């Protein structure tokens, strides 16, 4: 495990490494792998940490465990969250939203980062990361995704055109919250040790236009990144989730630390990601999760090989990952195929 983590640490320090690291985003699959309920990945820090640590060792995964989910922000700002329990459920989902009307925005208060929502569990998890010497991370949505977790997305979409000032109010609150969380983590562990994981699914071009990205997403990404870096945080990890090709020229304007870390979905080609971010970021990605779940082992192996061969050209490094979370129901042998691929094709000369 230590040799694995050293590989990632060396790449983050800008040093040459022996092999492409395998850097997974894998939660529910770990729970199933060790016989825990999927919900425990999100509401039981100790089980979540152990399940990931054991699975990472089994599959030769080089990164460290993470704790979080895409609907982050809903609960913290006063809505409800439902942890996965049914046969077809993958991750926590919204119950009710804190903001349903203009009036609700006036009542919106920033969460107490020490007490509200999942943050006490996230802090407990980070203390386990600290104790075991794995990277200290905190998983957050970007301001736009958090806004869509505070208020239903369809309402946010309508307001973007009709009442943009309301969306900016939500984004202001979300950005201030991100910065308060980061300050708390930086005070607790030292800013230079914390790697914020910022996931951004909501701004995909399956939902908004690049023009809307420029107006509603980019300014807040820039602000939060600049202020997080000013705290002394070295690396910011961005997961550019889904179809975001039209947004990439704007993403390229976002500071991500030195080095930055960018993971992309299968919708964004690794060569394209290198073109936009390769000079200042480690590129991470992008094996299609649907193929990992529904495809054959050979298909997963082939996609991994393609990603590795493209990724090895990234000047600041590349890590192999799925394009988004490895689906919990993926056949274990398909997941192993990514491990096999880094071992077969990932070595640097």
């Amino acid at each position, binding site marked *: 495990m230590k040799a694995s983590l050293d590989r990632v640490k060396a790449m983050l320090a800008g040093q040459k490494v022996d092999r492409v690291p395998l850097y997974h985003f894998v939660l529910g699959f770990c729970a199933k792998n060790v016989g825990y309920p999927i919900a425990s990945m999100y509401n039981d820090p100790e089980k979540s940490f152990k399940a990931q640590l054991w699975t990472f060792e089994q599959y030769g995964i080089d990164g460290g465990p993470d704790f979080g989910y895409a609907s982050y922000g809903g609960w913290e700002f006063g809505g409800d969250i439902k942890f996965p329990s049914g*046969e077809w459920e*993958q991750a926590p989902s919204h119950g009710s939203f804190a903001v349903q009307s203009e009036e609700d925005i006036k009542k919106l208060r920033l969460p107490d980062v020490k007490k509200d929502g999942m943050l006490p569990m996230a802090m407990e998890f980070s203390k386990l990361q600290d104790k075991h010497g794995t990277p200290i991370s905190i998983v957050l949505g970007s301001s736009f995704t958090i806004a869509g977790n505070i208020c239903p997305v369809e309402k946010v979409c309508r307001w973007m*055109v009709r009442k943009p000032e309301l969306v900016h109010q939500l984004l202001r609150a979300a950005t201030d919250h991100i910065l308060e969380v980061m300050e708390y983590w930086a005070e607790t562990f030292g800013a230079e040790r914390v790697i914020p994981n910022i996931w951004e699914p909501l701004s995909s071009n399956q939902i908004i236009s690049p023009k809307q990205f420029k107006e509603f997403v980019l300014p807040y990404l820039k602000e939060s990144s600049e202020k997080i870096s000013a705290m002394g945080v070295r690396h910011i990890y961005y997961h550019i989730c889904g179809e975001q090709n*039209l947004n990439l020229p704007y993403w390229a304007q976002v500071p991500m630390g030195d080095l930055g870390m960018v993971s992309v979905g299968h919708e964004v080609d690794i060569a394209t990601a290198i073109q936009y971010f390769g000079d200042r970021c480690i590129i991470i990605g992008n094996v299609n999760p649907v193929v990992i*779940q529904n495809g054959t082992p050979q298909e997963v192996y082939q996609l991994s090989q393609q990603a590795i061969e493209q990724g090895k050209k990234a000047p600041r490094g590349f890590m192999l990952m799925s394009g988004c979370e490895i689906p919990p129901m993926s056949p274990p042998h398909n997941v192993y195929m990514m491990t096999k691929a880094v071992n077969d094709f990932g070595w640097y000369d």
Partner: protein
Amino acid sequence: MASKERTEELIKGLQEAVLSMDEEAAVEYSNAVLSEGVDAYYAVMNGLAKAMDKVGQLYDSQEYFVPELLLCSDALYAGLEVLKPHIKAADAQAKGQVVIGVVEGDIHDIGKNLVKIMFEAAGWTVYDLGRDVQLARFAEEQQRTKSDLVALSALMTTSMLALPQAIKLIKARDPKVAVMVGGAPVTRDIAKSYGADGYADNAGQVVQEAVRVLSEVKKASK
């Protein structure tokens, strides 16, 4: 009774109201349609529905995105509210009936709502079961409503695994019912492997695909 030119002007006004997301204009033009004696059904189909078809194309070609599509549909529904009560019974026959919903385990319903809008705009009757729908409910609702088509949606890789089971339950009750599936992780190949009759990449393509699927299913059952 409006002249041919004036009728065309009103129809264009309705189209423009939808395309420019202008609810007030949609209501104004709809009221003018009624007061000037233009047939309400003609205005709905050639004005509002035709514009929404264009909106679907603009969405498909990434000129419009979800915010625009939602606001166009607000204008569509504003016009429909005025015109629908005045459609003659003989014209009120729906183009088709569809049961729609997001499968059990999944609460992401934006895609399903966009598909519903496109069906309604095209004159279909939609029975919307909502989201996180128990799989057996789709077959039950299809039987209750005698719908031609069931449209299933899933956004998550885990919930998409519920699709083949839902399809099996529907087909077990009536093998002649057509089933379409959609959602971000689903592809045409996956849809086929799950036993679905149809698939659309996005909401803009869904009605055309539904018409194709129904005609195929009808042909096969003859």
